[in-house]
């Protein structure tokens, strides 16, 4: 039937429903399993082939040699586009993605992080 106010019933019914939005940050959503968040690095697996550096579309990751067969991964979180190509390029599975998304910082220098510091914990806390 052609008439105005077609959506009124829907609107009225919605009054009694709970909101469709979430009260972030009080209420946090679960990230999907395949989510690509902040990287974690396993220094023991890295062989320093630098394929991740070569393939990174934004030049965000740098692998530095810090000793004999010892490597450090430095990521600029501000440059990273979270495509996880480095994870796919890595032959030794030295890089992994996490569901950590809360990476905001007030100081842009703090965005450049060495992944070795947190290599044991999967998710590190953002700066307070």
């Amino acid at each position, binding site marked *: 039937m052609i008439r105005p*106010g077609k959506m009124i019933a829907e609107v009225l019914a919605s009054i009694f429903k709970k909101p469709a939005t979430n009260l972030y940050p009080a209420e946090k959503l679960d990230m999907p399993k395949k989510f690509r968040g902040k990287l974690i690095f396993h220094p023991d697996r890295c062989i320093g082939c630098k394929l991740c550096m070569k393939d990174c579309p934004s030049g965000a990751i740098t692998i530095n040699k810090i000793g004999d067969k010892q490597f450090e991964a430095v990521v600029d979180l501000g440059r990273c586009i979270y495509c996880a*190509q480095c994870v796919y390029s890595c032959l030794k599975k030295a890089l992994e993605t996490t569901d950590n998304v809360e990476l905001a910082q007030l100081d842009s220098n703090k965005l450049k992080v060495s992944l070795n510091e947190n290599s044991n914990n999967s998710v590190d806390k953002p700066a307070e």
Partner: protein
Amino acid sequence: MHDSHDFKIPVGPQHPALKEPESFSLALKGEKIMGVDIRLGYNHRGIEKACEERSYIQDVYLIERICGICSHAHSTCFVQAVEEIAGLAVPRRALYIRTLVAELERIHSHLLWLGVAGHEIGFDTLLMYAWRDREIVMDILALLTGNRVNYGINTIGGVRRDIDADEIQQILKAMDTLEERTKYYIEVVTEETTIIERLAGVGVLSHDDALRLDAVGPTARASEVKRDVRSDDPYAAYGEIPFNVITDNHNDVYGRTVVRVKELMEAYQIIRFALKNLPEGPIEVKAPRKIPAGEAVSRYEAPRGENVHYVKANGTENPERVKVRAPTLANVQAVKHMLKDRFLADMSIVVAAIDPCFSCTDRLISIKNLDNADTKIINWEEIHSYGIKWYAERGVDFSDLNKRFAERMGNR
């Protein structure tokens, strides 16, 4: 009083009615639009040039970021061209997953458009509900690919992420909910008087004009032009999936709305078919880093229309040339025609009805001013030094620009 055009109204480059920078200069007589001058070039990002300086695998992510809505359209179109040059046989399972993501993207794009169209005609209730339901498909995309936008599912030679039985169940469940909601929207669009009255007869593009102006996508299909790359030149898995090309004979914005909501119903059927007939096997073939010399053109039916990519390879790790033609560029000429002799108040909905994506379509334009004697053609080196000089006069030092750029990109 003036006897010709009374006045000119510039709409854009920055204007509340437009979501992206684009200039429409409307010549008005009273409320009537006598002529439209459309000018592109306000959001040119130089992506085609940037592609030439990156490797193929980096380009997939760069190309994906041409558009935030049809990101899968651009990346698939690009990888199809590269795969054709390299002669890669993409596994069937990968093609089905690409098709699946493509249709999910179409659903999200069309629901987004329905909301935007509602907003442009002052029917914000439709905007709120359409976008609420769009969250269902966004969650499914995040589940399937890992992200709500810029899915990153494509790679040269296949897809990066497989789907499992649990995910298939979740997608099917979401499709049932969305189908039910879409039936409701079809009912709203075809029965709500305010929508019909506001959209019918607005932005008319006749069948002949649609053909003449080379309109693409839902804009053309609403003028009964049965043009759809998915059926005309099947890519991915579309050759194996039965579906109908939706057309409409209203020729106006109302017809475009009907085409889009009906295409949603087709998308659910395509997704169900693809999930039911998902072939087993690998999802990726190994692609060489160096793509052999050659060139290819790839076509893809994006939610907004036909998307064309051209890639030329020269045997190195980087492409020699990448060319992108987003669907909005094909439709923008039609907008000019649709606005002529219509009212100023119709402008925002007529522009919104082609589902424009100005940043995707934007390109460097040169304006030839034949009256100006100072017009001259300068080469790349000259424009480079001109740019440095222009900024130096304003106190910005860019003389070491190339060096700084090399440092920023690291020693790759």
